[in-house]
């Protein structure tokens, strides 16, 4: 058995591009535009989760986290986009 080591895996969950994001819209409209930052054309929000995973490789850690997110329904594939990446 090869050695395992600790990997940090980041998950970012956002509403799919075509799906509304009321929280982002609210921040944009009621905070940013109100304070005069007209150059900001849009805001999207999401959820960030950091996993600390023992795995043999970074790829394996990412694979594991992807599986967890699918299986435990940490996101809803029907409305969410998910990005799973190794923390830099």
């Amino acid at each position, binding site marked *: 058995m090869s050695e395992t080591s600790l990997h940090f895996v980041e998950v970012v969950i956002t509403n799919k591009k075509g*799906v*509304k994001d*009321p929280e982002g819209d609210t921040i944009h409209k009621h905070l940013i535009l109100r304070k005069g930052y007209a150059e900001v054309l849009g805001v999207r929000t999401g959820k960030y989760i950091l996993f600390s995973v023992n795995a043999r490789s970074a790829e394996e850690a990412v694979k594991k986290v992807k599986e967890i997110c699918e299986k435990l329904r940490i996101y809803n594939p*029907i*409305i969410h986009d998910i990005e799973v990446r190794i923390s830099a």
Partner: protein
Amino acid sequence: MPLTSEEVKEIRKILGREPTTEELAMFEAQWSEHCSYKSSKLLLKFLPTKGKHVIIGPGRDAPAVKVFKDWIVVFKIESHNHPSAVDPYNGAATGIGGIVRDILSLGAKPVALLDMLYMGNTRNPHANWLIRGIVKGISDYGNRIGIPTVAGDTWFDEVFNVQPLVNVACVGIAKSNDIILSSPQPGDLIILMGNATGRDGLLGSSFASKPLSEDVDKDIGAVQVGDPLTEKLLIDAIQILVAKKAVRYIKDLGGGGLTTALCETAADHGLGAVINLEKLHTRQHLTPLEILVSESQERMLIVVDESKLELVDEVLSKLDVQYSVIGYFTNDGLIKIFYNGAKVAEVPSKELAKPRPIRRASIPPLEALKGLKPFYQLPPEPDYREAIIKLISSPNIASKRWIYEQYDHEVGVRTVVKPGFGDAAVLRFLDNSLRGIAVKGDANPRYTALDPFNGAANAVGECFRNLVAVGSKPIAIVDELNAGNPEKPDHFWYFEMMLKGVAWMAEELRVPVVGGKVSFYNEDHMGRQIKPTTTIVGVGRVEDVSRVMTMEFKEHSSLVAIVGVTYPELGGSEYLYRVFGLEEGEIPKPRPASELRNAKFIRRVIRLGYAKAVHDISLGGLAIALIEMAVAGRIGVEVDISKVYTRGVQRLDEVIFSETQARYVVEIDSRYVDDFKHLAERMGVNISIIGRVADSNQIVFSFGPNNLVNLDLFTVVDIYNSILEKEVEGEV
């Protein structure tokens, strides 16, 4: 559900030419089952909808009943079954949003929400995910718009694993002279206010009017995301506009989007309209077709006399609510849609709004025989202690605190009776009087699946009893009929029977059905229908909230009585299912005459102060009713089952677990026992005094001298209160 070729032919006939793509989309949205009720319309005429309290019956976004001379209650039920199956969080949340806007459309102030949830087995991973999402979606949305969720009903059953039923209701109140009863006039401006229209929820109603496809991912367009902040602004804006008498008419944009809101408003008042779509505020660039059928949430249509436009602008701008003046009403009956000057649709409003009703084939399946089977041979009697433990561990019976503790049930300090303590929720008007209303929602999917007519009638009966048990007078009900595929005769039969059951029982109990909703196509991708379910929400009048009756036992030495006759009615009972796994047999018969007589008695007993606690007997029978009263009061009880007034009973389980209708348990103040008995005699009501509230922590059932079951109260409390959370969290 796309239009059929006959429907397209009919559209050609109506228009006298080939329809444009925009016109086809409008017809598809409006002629969907969800918007047009085409399969149910003929049968809905069975429902008794009139009564002296009814101000507005079915037909508008929400009905209105006069509960007191100066107070009107507006309430309505809605289903969000299909959206919740795909995206439980947003599906359930937007269900709340929609029902609240229905209440706003009459200018009423929404004061309470109810949620009736029929969901899958907690231990099935997919169902479990749906359950959590649905409950969270409702609580987040409800809490954020500041409307308490005060009551509801919950059921867990494998049959809802993939397709849950999410029925939500909202109750609003209005002063008699504030309610909006005026009609739109030709020349009035049409304003769309609230969220910018986007591509979300395109043809969502059409999506709800077909079975779940296996690959739900393709239905992404139909998903809607709730935006409670905008909803709250809409609520506030409407209150102000109504108070300032600035609007003539209000309509929610729900299923069918702009198309439905426009054509129904126009058709109901014999009007037409001219609309310029490019005037509408949108989130992204949309085609005219997309604008017409988008179901973006948190939008409302208001109709304003031109002279009031300035006032409306002032109110909406101050609250930062976006709006667009998109057109005006005409008197030619034609809806004319323009986009940048080019006409994209011209449709007669009446023909668009109301497709020809369809009389669907209706045939009982063989399976329906299950509900006719008498129990000539029951399984051997179980160990009663074990059977009772199994029943209180049933998530259908156990405390729903895991759910209601996620809800804010006290915002607005209107709530008089808290969840878990009364058969119905009681709310006060907060007008320096003691007047209030009681509300409750009920269903029993097992009953309606076995015997849709009697099962639906029993749902009306149970709602009626729950309202009576808190001391209120039932005024009116609304119904939600959740059924399978109307194109399948063996599914449609259940719908037809449920509807007739509601109609019959409501007529007998003299509570008009003032509104409701039909949800079809509740089947999984294999074409199996869910258990057809009739959900009833009722409103009762409370003269004095300080004398409202709760269900917890209050004082040792009080006597315990059962009101009503107990029959051996175990068919379809929770007992047979939990203990023996049986779901069959004749379900308890609806008993409208007994319901009326016993209800009158109960209300009088409460008014005269004889009763200290009242609880209706339903799921789990007498045993569970007594245990729930003991658990809520944290006090023991001792009863002798041999004293229960029964007819035709041969075994003990037929007494303690029978779900015979029209029965109540009453805790009688020991000072008034004789008065109680005399009153019962005078009113011809069957009562039996079966025991007393005990100065102990024991729940004791005996039969004459023989001890049957002895339960430690706090063991029972622990199971009753914790089992649902354990089931959902997977700790069982």
